[in-house]
């Protein structure tokens, strides 16, 4: 099907024919910039007048960040509190990226497989960095299983399991969001005049939030698994 009309790509295309081709082939990068600008603007607006008794905007952001922090500490424990910036960034970025797909004329950056893959790779490398930082060379004991005789078998199983984590994180997020986009596109093509995509849009809000929460939860569980002592 022909590429749908996307506002920000059309604005970017005013810069010339080379920019137009780039803008329509790399839509996810362009809309990533849009989401980043939105997040920066939101952060700037929320912290413009920091007060001990918060106003409305600061109150909302405090509720969100406090909720994320409590959720993270309940999974990782007290020593994992320093992981809040990374995890909260991943959550807010994925949540906002999923949500912009609901606006007609916008494309969600997570609808292309590269964006969820980049987030999953960050989580994967951070997990191993945490393990090496906390345990040193003994981190290899996480991969060898309960007894030394079964170590080669368990090494293979654990390595495949870790690679499967990256794949599962990526495809869960990508499949949900691109599936939603496909269904929206098809319904719009079939019966757009009768507001047929509306139930999918309502479901889409729910799915966007749940997928961001699941990504946040699973990355916290992986961090906790790297920090704990081996069996």
């Amino acid at each position, binding site marked *: 099907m022909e590429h749908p009309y996307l506002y920000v790509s059309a604005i970017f295309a005013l810069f010339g024919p080379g920019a137009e081709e780039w803008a329509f082939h790399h839509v996810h990068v362009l809309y990533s910039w849009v989401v980043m600008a939105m997040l920066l603007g939101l952060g700037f607006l929320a912290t413009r007048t920091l007060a001990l008794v918060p106003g409305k905007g600061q109150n909302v952001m405090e509720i969100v960040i406090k909720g994320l922090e409590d959720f993270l500490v309940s999974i990782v424990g007290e020593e994992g509190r320093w992981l809040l910036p990374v995890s909260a960034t991943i959550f807010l970025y994925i949540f906002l990226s999923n949500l912009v797909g609901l606006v007609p004329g916008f494309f969600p950056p997570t609808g292309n497989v590269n964006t969820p893959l980049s987030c999953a790779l960050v989580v994967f490398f951070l997990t191993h960095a945490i393990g090496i930082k906390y345990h040193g060379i003994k981190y290899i004991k996480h991969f060898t299983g309960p007894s030394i005789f079964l170590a080669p078998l368990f090494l293979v199983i654990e390595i495949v399991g870790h690679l499967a984590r990256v794949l*599962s994180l990526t*495809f*869960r997020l*990508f*499949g*949900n969001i*691109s*599936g939603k986009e*496909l269904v929206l596109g098809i319904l719009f093509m079939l019966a757009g005049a009768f507001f047929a995509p509306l139930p999918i849009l309502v479901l889409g809000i729910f799915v966007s939030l*749940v*997928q961001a*929460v*699941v990504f946040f*939860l699973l990355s916290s569980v992986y961090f906790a698994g790297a920090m704990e002592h081996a069996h």
Partner: protein
Amino acid sequence: MEAEVLKALIAAMTAAGFGIAIAAVGCGLAMGLGLKAAVTGIARNPEASGKIMTTMLIGLALIESLAIYTLVVALLLIFVAPQGVSFTGLLGQ
């Protein structure tokens, strides 16, 4: 050669359709079991309904992700299989 290409593509489309249907069956059964346990928990202890509902939603999302993997494979079969078939030289001949 044309008949073989057509048979390969029809097989890919049929597999995609059946794959999603079977994944939906398994997913529905598993989510039903999880939901049943959650409702039983709330019925026994209505005060814990917040925690139970949060756990249930997270569990449902994780179960649903298995059906989403099947969806991704089905999309690969429908949209990328023709390129794969041409790559192995069938379409070129």
